[in-house]
């Protein structure tokens, strides 16, 4: 219990000093990740951790990298991308100009997957993808678009299951242990820092993808973020969440309809 109070206090001070708000993150996971950060840095108490983080901004940056989850892959959940291709892309194609927000883009794998999907549908040139994340370092990696070559086998299999139409190897160049993604995919992607817990809407979009981000938030923050998405979507805009996420806790849940209930793709109806 004391642990709980100390952690809460630490997160409050971080919010006060740096403007990063982790106070409404789901506690079991953030607590574990904070303890993990303490272990690898030989910090023995939350109080000591507070002293380090509040004084040393570089330590705080490392802290943000550790406590935010940056695990992702290309075409993660292939049936989801298949559904996007079949149920959403044809409707996006009716817009002269397509704006998409990938919120919580992490190291970029899902952003590039989406870019590939748009390219194969002939829509990439009239689309802009805004990829945002709280974590600067992840954004930097996303911008570079360089991934481990050893992952490409899995991504190729995901791509095929997702209904890919080309040879996946056309989209990257292998060099030593790395795969450099085709630069042309990046042309219409804008990478920037955005913090879902505190920042506001910054544009109007035809589609918002936010997959496996809400699970780290408590119900209140989930609801606020979905309201933010609602406000940022055009009428009949699409919202895509992670496989196990839902609109259940959102005030605005009644203003969305189902496009694909299983793949968690919604449409703004109100």
């Amino acid at each position: 219990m004391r642990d709980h109070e100390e952690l809460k206090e630490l997160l409050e001070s971080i919010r006060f000093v740096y403007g990063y708000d982790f106070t409404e993150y789901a506690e079991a996971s953030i607590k574990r990740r904070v303890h993990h950060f303490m272990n690898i840095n030989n910090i023995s108490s939350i109080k000591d951790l507070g002293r380090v983080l509040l004084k040393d901004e570089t330590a705080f940056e490392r802290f943000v990298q550790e406590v935010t989850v940056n695990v992702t892959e290309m075409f993660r959940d292939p049936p989801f991308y298949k559904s996007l291709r079949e149920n959403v892309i044809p409707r996006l194609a009716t817009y002269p100009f397509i704006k998409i927000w990938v919120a919580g883009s992490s190291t970029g794998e899902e952003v590039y997957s989406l870019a590939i999907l748009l390219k194969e549908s002939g829509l990439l040139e009239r689309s802009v993808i805004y990829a945002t994340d709280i974590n600067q370092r992840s954004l930097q990696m996303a911008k570079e678009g360089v991934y481990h070559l050893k992952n490409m086998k899995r991504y190729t299999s995901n791509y095929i299951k997702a209904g890919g139409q080309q040879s996946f190897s056309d989209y990257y160049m292998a060099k030593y242990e790395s795969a450099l993604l085709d630069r042309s995919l990046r042309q219409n992607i804008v990478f920037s820092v955005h913090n879902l817990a505190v920042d506001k809407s910054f544009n109007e979009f035809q589609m918002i993808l936010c997959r496996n981000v809400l699970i780290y938030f408590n119900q209140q923050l989930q609801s606020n973020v979905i309201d933010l998405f609602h406000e940022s979507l055009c009428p009949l805009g699409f919202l895509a969440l992670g496989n196990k996420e839902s609109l259940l806790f959102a005030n605005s849940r009644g203003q969305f309809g189902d496009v694909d209930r299983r793949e968690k793709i919604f449409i703004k109806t109100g």
Partner: protein
Amino acid sequence: MRYEAVVIGVSAGGLAALSGILQELPANYPLPVIVIQHRSKDQRTLLEEVMQARCRMRVKQADEKEKIEGGVVYFAPADYHLLIEKDRSFSLSCEEPVNFSRPSVDLLFETASEVYENKLIGVILTGSNSDGAAGIQAIKARGGLTIAQDPGNALFPAMPQAAINTGSVYSVLTVEEIKNFLLEIAKKLS
């Protein structure tokens, strides 16, 4: 009796062991039974369907932020960690695999032990890795009851053996004995 939840970790060879334990628990079994069964990440709900056909208790996949209730068998979704929050609800996480496993038995057991403390029963069944060993230690450290399937009775003995090797397992039982024990607990609760 004081117990409030049962957590089970199981990997290779799990279906038979789980069926043996769960199929005779009555529909109104007073405790929640929360299970990590390692499985392929493409397999979304087959396990729940198969187990529901065999069990009298309600069987479902744990949902994000769902309140935990007695009389229900919850399975962790494929490719997500399952954690328990202080208010006795679930949360999910995609963070890195722990012991090459996602979901990880250790993660569930550790977070469950923090919430249920000495009112928790932790069970490790058949499997060919060592996931759950650290989790069993966490449960023991908080006064919970720890059980491992008898490795001689397990299709894959490595996982229960790893738990036993920590020295934190209170009893080593066969599937049949684990089932009887869980039934016994329920009688004492009512």
